[in-house]
């Protein structure tokens, strides 16, 4: 299996990548880690005439703190997310997710940007970035703009991103100190995509839920933010009854497609269970228990 023919362009910087995007004729694709795009090209699901490699652009890499936010370059690999001290302290949800994606070799190549921007509803980062209130910093011929992850995903492979635009950074407000977090994912085997998964960020105050974000992976055409469940929990103590209700409400909010990983009924059931687990784990962590 070899990809079809294309012209290869190694962009030296963001400006050059943008110029290539607007000047080249025919279908163009951005190459990040290549672990979603190249398999699609091998299978002829994608046949770009031009491949613009972002691999040499150092300004698209790295993780830093800036005024209460984390700024992460889209070309940062999963392995780098896993190894980051800043993330371990400030946003442990991200390395927890990276750990559950694919396998070591794929994590060495696959990038946060490639995962979040490919648009595959089965990818893990879209739901996680949505739970984190992340924003994409986007550059294009009309200048720079930002788009919140919540609302960015419009359908499978459809997002609020033009053909001539590039994401240059991902900005994440640093979650409150003492927050609880969890990403609970059921997969058939090591290295597999999620049958269903739930991401949770939880802040407690005097035993009550002060703020919660709950999102689901692979349970609809886009990541799902379960507003109903967030509303149900906010201001209330997080006891077993509430968690059970939350699980049922999350399952009901799903719209999964049938695939190799199961029927819609089964996936909705798993969504409920992943939600219960994520809430329990995030609660334990917010209360200072499990790390």
């Amino acid at each position, binding site marked *: 299996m070899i990809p079809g*023919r294309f*012209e290869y362009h190694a962009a030296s910087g963001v400006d050059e990548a943008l110029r290539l995007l607007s000047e080249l004729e025919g279908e163009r694709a951005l190459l990040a880690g290549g672990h979603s795009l190249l398999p699609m090209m091998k299978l002829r699901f994608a046949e770009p005439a031009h491949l613009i490699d972002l691999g040499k652009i150092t300004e698209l890499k790295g993780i830093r703190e800036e005024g209460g936010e984390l700024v992460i370059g889209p070309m940062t690999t999963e392995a780098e997310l896993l190894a980051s001290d800043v993330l371990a302290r400030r946003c442990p949800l991200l390395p927890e997710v990276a750990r559950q994606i694919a396998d070591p070799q794929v994590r060495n190549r696959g990038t946060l940007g490639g995962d979040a921007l490919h648009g595959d509803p089965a990818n893990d980062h879209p739901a996680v970035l949505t739970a984190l209130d992340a924003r994409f910093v986007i550059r294009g011929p009309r200048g720079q703009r930002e788009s919140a992850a919540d609302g960015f995903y419009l359908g499978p492979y459809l997002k609020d991103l033009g053909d001539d635009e590039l994401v240059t950074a991902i900005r994440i407000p640093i979650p409150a100190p003492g927050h609880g977090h969890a990403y609970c994912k059921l997969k058939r085997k090591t290295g597999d995509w999620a049958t269903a998964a739930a991401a949770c960020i939880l802040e407690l105050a005097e035993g009550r839920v002060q703020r919660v974000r709950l999102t689901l992976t692979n349970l609809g055409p886009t990541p799902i933010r379960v507003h109903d469940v967030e509303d149900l929990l906010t201001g209330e103590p997080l006891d077993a009854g509430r968690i059970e209700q939350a699980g049922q409400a999350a399952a009901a909010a799903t719209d999964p497609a049938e695939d190799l990983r199961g029927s819609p009924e089964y996936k909705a059931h798993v969504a409920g269970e992943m939600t219960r687990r994520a809430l329990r784990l995030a609660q334990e962590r917010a209360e200072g228990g499990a790390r």
Partner: protein
Amino acid sequence: MSDKVHVSFTVNGEAVDVLVDPRELLIHTLRERLRLTGAHIGCETSHCGACTVDLDGASVKSCTVLTVQCQGAELITVEGLAGPDGLHPLQAAFVQEHGLQCGYCTPGMLVRGWRLLQDNPDPSEAEIRFEMAGNLCRCTGYQNIVRSVRRAARELRGEPVAEGEAATE
């Protein structure tokens, strides 16, 4: 359209220069142009790890890397593991602990296991299993593969392991 591209990199310490079509995958350059046939093609879909090589200090699946992405890179393949004195201790451990059955996955296992031991000279069994998860053995003989990596780790740390002594905890 799609002019050939000159790509220079080093493989096992030797500088090479190839002229490739942009769509050529690294595994094909290694096997068909450079005659380094140690890395195998299993699944072609980045699942099995038989094609694993070391690219700039990290394990990668060479069926999902374009050769043109390797300009200036340093590559190590299974052919580069043995030294002038013979097999690398990890290769010897695979012999001693029966870490290979049919051998198809072995080159990928060796290159991956070698990198793992560079990064972590004293991995626990759980860490070995986590770090080797991108390499599938179709004979599913994982137990002996894990033992082989454990034995090599001990030997590389200078703790000799007696013949016949299983490299268990």
